């Protein structure tokens, strides 16, 4: 069995071995071993030139990653948690996403940014949010959210091979999950969604940290003979609209499960795309199960009440199906 954490580490290790242009930088990725222990041991293996501990300067080390990418390197930049990425938002949005276009196609930015995201560990309102949609809003960026160990292992090499900036959101609650990785598991596509469970009555759409409980919800629904299809978005920009629509045309009902706040969320975008592309196939309105619109509270019962949970997902599906 391989953990999600080990899968990411192995992907980084493989990239470092395969391509001398690749290096990892970020806060505490070296001597500390990564705040989620993802890069543990890599400093000893690859040395401080390629496993670079940075100062607490998100804006500059992300910008330096962009510059290094422009200069011929293939940096992997780790931002300790999604809330800290806001300190680097200027470089991500105003430089990484724009340089290719502003330069008339002359300067692409082959940069990978890894960002732990999400809630569930009682670390309150400055370490717990899900802001994937903010980044997925921006043309010029690609945004992926591996929800499985195989994707954690396989999305990084594909992202590194991409000529443009790719942001990988790793849900912090997933690092410990285990899966049997197939022999020779490696690069996977980062431009399409995956059907994780087939069904005929309702489509449940999720990504990242919400996939697990969405699959559990589908299993629960099956007990009542409701056949739910589960789509793992995998890639948040570009969205695999066709995969979503194909499923909805089959099931005629959709529930979007999204750890973000509902207002202006990816769930809102997906709902709009279903309305635009499959309105006449729908038997009812698209339902959304999102986080309550509060800064994440510390107390466990409040945090759990904030997040989308299985009962709410199951209830939303039942309401649509009418059972």
């Amino acid at each position, binding site marked *: 069995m391989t953990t999600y954490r080990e899968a990411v580490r192995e992907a980084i290790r493989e990239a470092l071995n395969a391509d001398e242009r690749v290096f990892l930088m970020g806060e505490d990725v070296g001597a500390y071993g990564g705040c989620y222990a993802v890069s543990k041991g890599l400093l000893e293996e690859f040395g401080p030139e390629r496993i670079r501990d940075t100062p607490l300067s998100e804006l*500059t080390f992300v910008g330096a990653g962009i*510059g290094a*990418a422009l200069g011929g390197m293939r940096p992997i930049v780790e931002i300790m948690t999604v809330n800290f990425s806001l300190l680097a938002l200027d470089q991500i949005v105003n*430089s990484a996403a724009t340089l290719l276009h502003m330069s008339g196609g*002359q300067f692409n930015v082959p940069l990978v940014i890894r960002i732990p995201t999400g809630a569930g560990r009682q670390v309150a309102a400055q370490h717990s949010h899900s802001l994937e949609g903010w980044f997925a809003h921006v043309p010029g960026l690609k945004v992926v959210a591996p929800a499985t160990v195989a994707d954690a292992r396989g999305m990084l090499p594909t992202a590194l091979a991409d000529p443009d900036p790719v942001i990988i959101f790793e849900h912090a609650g997933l690092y410990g999950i285990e899966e049997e990785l197939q022999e020779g598991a490696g690069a996977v596509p980062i431009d399409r969604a995956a059907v994780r469970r087939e069904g005929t009555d309702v489509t449940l759409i999720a990504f990242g940290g919400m996939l697990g409980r969405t699959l559990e919800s589908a299993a629960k629904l099956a007990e009542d003979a409701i056949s739910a299809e589960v789509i793992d978005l995998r890639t948040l920009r570009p969205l695999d609209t066709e995969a979503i629509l194909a499923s909805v045309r089959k099931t005629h009902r959709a529930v979007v499960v999204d750890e973000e706040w509902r207002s202006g969320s990816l769930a809102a975008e997906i709902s709009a795309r279903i309305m635009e592309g499959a309105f006449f196939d729908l038997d009812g309105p698209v339902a959304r199960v999102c986080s309550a619109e509060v800064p994440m509270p510390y107390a466990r019962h409040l945090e759990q009440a904030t997040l989308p949970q299985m009962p709410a997902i199951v209830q939303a599906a039942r309401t649509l199906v009418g059972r």
Partner: protein
Amino acid sequence: MSIETPSVAHNTEGASPVEAVSADVAHAYRLLTEMLRIRRLEERSAELYQAEKIRGFLHLYIGEEAVAVGVLQALAPDDAVVATYREHGHALVRGVSARAIMAEMFGKQEGCSGGRGGSMHLFDAATRFYGGNAIVGGGLPLAVGLALADKMQGKKCVTACFFGDGAAAEGVFHESLNLAALWRLPTLFCCENNLYAMGTALARAQSQTRLVEKATANGVPATDVDGMDVEAVERAARRAADAIREGQGPQFLELRTYRFRSHSMFDPDLYRPKAEIEEWKQRCPIATYSGTLRERGMLDDASLASIEANVTREVDDAVAFAEAGTWEPLETLTRHVYSEESAKR
């Protein structure tokens, strides 16, 4: 004395108008010619803005020419440059043609950014000119990263990063200098201190107005330079670049200069005393340097007129080129968002 001045090329070969005279004289002419190329290009740009050929924001470098011309003498072709939104002069001296710059300001596809960037976003891969950055301070980490890439690849290159005094108030200024010093990166930080961040005087915005002190506080050796003296700028830049190439890490130049025009074409320039502007205009880097060369017996009316004529021809040609340029077809609107056509959905 009379100097043969062949016509200034329109392409990246640029501007040394003198071959047959001594190296000193040739170099002096190069400095003077480059400053005049910037000045005349900028003056014409202002006219074209009034004529509504150039739109958006237009920030002119008039008065500050000695800085770009002096610093860029210290760079080799494989070095890199990161500049600001007031960068027409840097691009021109670096070797981007006046044609490509003017066409870009017209928004034509023959422009150096294909009409996608405009005045504030000139880019050129051939000369490693990385913009054209219109977020104040936004270029600094890019320059640090370019220097990191060069260093990690064992190249002996320098990345020159231009920014204004306003950038020294941004947090990213300190972050970038710190990282460059910590990792001993080959970055030449060039602070064009023209005393105003748009309309805000340096002393009204920053508690420490000696910007070299901010650099040294971050461990970057710093030099205070008269930015109106092109030879002084060149000397300081060469010293700094030499130190960087020896592996000593980054260097910082505070180049004291002044813009003679308003911040942008929208700016009524109400915040600067007229007397102050006039005082600085007396120190015009071009007039001063022309005078110096005359005193040295290197320049006379005829040779200056010859340089001017060549520069005028180059600018005329650039305007004609831009005027004749073509608009990119609307069908290609979403090009260059991603390298491949991966955004079809």
